[in-house]
C-alpha cells in the first residue's frame, strides 16, 4: 500500500506563473506515517491534494500500491482525506458524518451501524452519535473527521495539517493519540505539517519540501543528523550555518573557534551546522578555577562571546549571543545550568560547541 509520486509538477494561476510543486518524486512506505514537512508555501499541501486527486497535475504520476491512479477520479481512489478545518458536514449528526462514505456506496444499514460504532469507539467518542459538529470541541471534531475518513477503509490516509487549528495542549494530546491510532490501524498515512516536532515525533519517513522542491527525504534521524543542506539544518532544529575554510587538513571556523580535521583539500570551503542545544556557555570574568579556565581558553572549540538577550521559557532558557565577528548565535540551555552559572544579559561568556556537523559547502559554479 505504498504511495509513489514521480516527477509531479503543478503550477497555478491564469498564466501558470505560480509554482505549486516542481517535478517532485518520493515514495511513502506502506503502513507507515510519512510526513510532508516544510514552511508555508513549500508546496506540501498541493502535493497532498495531488495524491488525493483534488488537484490535477500538469505532469507526473501517482501510484498507490503499484497501481497508476494519476487519471483515476478522486471518488474511485479510495483515499481518506482529513482537512485542517475539519470540513465536517455541519448539518449532519456525528453518526451521519461518519456513515456518509458508506451510505453513498449504499452499504446495508446493519453494516453501517456496526462500522460507525466501531469507529467511534476507535476515536473514543462513543455516545456522541446524535451531536452536531457545532456541539463538539476542536479536538473532538478532528477525531470525528478521522473516523469519517477511515470509515471507507481507505488505502491511504491523507492528513492536511490536521492539528493546525488546535491549541498547543490539544495538539500534543492528539499527536499521541494519532500515533496510537496508527498502531492499531496501520494505514499508510501521509501527514502534511509545518511543525518539525510533529513530523519528527510522528513519522517514520520525512519528506522535507521548500519552494516546491524536495530538499531531503529520509528517516527523521537521518535528516536531523545528516542534513543535506543549510536549509534542512536550519529548518530541523534551527541550526545556524557558519562557513569556514580548510587549511592543512583542518576545517576552522573563526567566530566559534571551532577546528576539526577533515578529509578535504586546502582552500576548500566548508559549513558547520550548529544547533542551539549543542552549545554550552561558561561565564567569563567570574571566578573560574585554574583548571576550568585553562581548559576553556585552550580548547580550540571554545571562544568568547557576549549575551545579548536571554529569555526563560519554562524549563529551558533561550539566549542570543553575539560572536566576535558580529554574527549572532542562538543557544538553548537547561534553566538550572544557566542559573548555576549565573549567566545574565550582557555577560561575557565562553562558547563550548559540543556537537557540530561539518560538511563541504556547495560550490556554485557560474
Amino acid at each position, binding site marked *: 500500500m505504498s504511495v509513489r509520486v514521480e516527477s509531479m509538477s503543478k503550477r497555478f494561476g491564469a498564466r501558470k506563473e505560480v509554482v505549486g510543486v516542481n517535478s517532485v518524486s518520493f515514495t511513502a512506505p506502506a503502513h507507515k506515517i510519512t510526513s510532508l514537512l516544510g514552511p508555508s508555501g513549500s508546496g506540501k499541501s498541493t502535493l497532498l491534494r495531488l495524491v488525493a486527486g*483534488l488537484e490535477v497535475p500538469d505532469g507526473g504520476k501517482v501510484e498507490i500500491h503499484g497501481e497508476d491512479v494519476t487519471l483515476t477520479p478522486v*471518488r474511485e481512489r479510495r483515499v481518506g482525506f482529513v*482537512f485542517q478545518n475539519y*470540513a465536517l458536514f*455541519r448539518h449532519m449528526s456525528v453518526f451521519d458524518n461518519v456513515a*456518509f462514505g458508506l451510505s*453513498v456506496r449504499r452499504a446495508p444499514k446493519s453494516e453501517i451501524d456496526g462500522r460507525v460504532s466501531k469507529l467511534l469507539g476507535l476515536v473514543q467518542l462513543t455516545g456522541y452519535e446524535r451531536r452536531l459538529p457545532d456541539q463538539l470541541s476542536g479536538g473532538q471534531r478532528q477525531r470525528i473527521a478521522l473516523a469519517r475518513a477511515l*470509515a471507507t477503509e481507505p488505502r491511504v490516509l491523507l492528513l492536511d495539517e490536521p492539528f493546525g487549528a488546535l491549541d498547543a495542549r490539544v495538539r500534543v494530546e492528539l499527536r499521541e493519540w494519532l500515533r496510537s491510532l496508527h498502531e492499531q490501524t496501520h494505514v499508510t498515512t501521509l501527514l502534511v505539517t509545518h511543525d518539525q516536532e510533529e513530523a519528527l515525533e510522528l513519522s517514520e519517513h520525512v519528506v522535507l519540501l521548500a519552494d516546491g522542491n524536495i530538499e531531503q527525504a529520509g528517516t527523521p534521524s537521518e535528516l536531523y543528523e545528516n542534513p543535506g543542506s543549510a536549509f534542512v539544518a536550519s529548518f530541523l532544529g534551527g541550526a545556524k550555518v557558519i562557513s569556514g575554510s580548510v587549511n592543512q587538513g583542518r576545517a576552522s571556523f573563526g567566530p566559534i573557534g571551532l577546528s576539526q580535521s577533515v578529509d578535504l583539500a586546502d582552500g576548500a570551503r566548508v559549513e558547520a551546522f550548529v544547533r542551539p542545544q549543542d552549545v554550552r556557555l561558561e561565564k567569563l570574568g567570574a571566578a573560574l578555577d585554574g583548571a576550568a579556565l585553562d581548559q576553556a581558553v585552550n580548547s580550540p572549540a571554545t571562544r568568547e562571546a557576549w549575551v545579548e538577550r536571554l529569555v526563560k521559557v519554562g524549563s529551558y532558557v533561550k539566549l542570543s549571543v553575539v560572536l566576535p565577528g558580529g554574527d549572532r548565535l542562538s543557544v538553548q540551555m537547561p534553566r538550572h545550568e544557566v542559573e548555576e552559572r549565573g549567566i545574565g544579559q550582557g555577560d561575557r561568556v565562553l562558547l563550548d560547541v559540543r556537537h557540530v556537523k561539518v560538511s563541504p559547502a556547495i560550490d556554485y559554479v557560474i
Partner: protein
Amino acid sequence: MSGVVGSWGPGQARLGRPALEEGRLMRGLLIAAAMGFLGLFLLVPLAVVFLTALRDGLNAYWHAVIDPDTLSAIRLTFLAAGIAVPLNLVFGVGAAWLLSKYEFTGRSLLITLIDLPFSVSPVVAGLIFVLLFGAKGWFAPLLEQLDLKIIFAVPGIVIATTFITFPLVAREVLAVMQAQGSDEEEAALTLGASGWQIFHRITLPKIKWGVLYGVILCNARAMGEFGAVSVVSGHIRGETTTIPLQVEILYGEYHFAGAFAVASLLALVALFTLVLKHWVAWQGRRSLRPQQDALIQVPTEAMQGGAAI
C-alpha cells in the same frame, strides 16, 4: 464612577456599557431621526394606501378586488411570477454553482453581466424586448412564421419579468456559496460521493436558506415589477395587465378607491414578504452560525415594486 449624562460624543466609561456607545442625548437624537424618517417615508404612505382603499367602505373594497379585470390582473401576476421565479431559481443556483466552483476566463465578466438587469432601467429593458420581438423587431419574421405573439401578449410579460428578476437568486446564492467555501464538497468527494449526491446531500442543505431568501426577493420583485412590464404589455385590459399595471389604469381613470384597493393587495404581499424574509434570514443565520452572515446584504431595490403605485 458615573458617566456625564447628556454628553456629546463618547462619554465617560460606565460599567456594563459598550465602549462604542454614544452619550444619551446623541443616542436619542439618532433614534428620533431614524424613526422620523421611517415614519414619514414608509409608514405614512402605507397607512394612506390602506385608508384610501377602505374610504368607501369594505363593500366597495371587495367589489374593486373582485372586478373581472382586477382578477385577471392578479392571475397574470401570479402566472408571470410563477414562471419567472422557478426559471430564475434553476438559473440562479446553476450560475452560482458555476461561479463559485470554477475558475475560467470571463468569470468576472459573467458576474458583472448577472447584475446587468439591476443597472439597466426597467423601461430600457422593456424596450430591448420590443426591439427584439416587436412587430419590426429582429425576430419578427421568425415569430410571424411560427404565428407567435410575444410583445403586447402574455409571453412578453413573462420574459420581461424573468429578465428583471434574474439577478436576485443568483446573487444571493453566490454570496452564500462563496462564504461557505467548498471544503465539505471536497470531503464528500474523497468519501466517494457522486456529483449529484454531493449537490443534494451537502451543497443544497448548506445553501437552502440562501436559496429561499433569494426566491422570496425574486418573487416580491416579480409581482411588483412595473416599468419593463408596462412597455411590453400594451395595457390590454383583462388580458395583458398585471396588478401594478391595473393600479395605474384605475388611477388614470380617477377611480382612486379602486386603485388603492388593488395597490393594497401589493402592499399586503410586500408586508408578508418582509415577515417571511426576516424569518428566513433568522433561520439562515442560525444554521450558518458562526460563519459569516452572507444573508444580510439585501439588494434594496428588489422591494421597490412591492408598494409601488
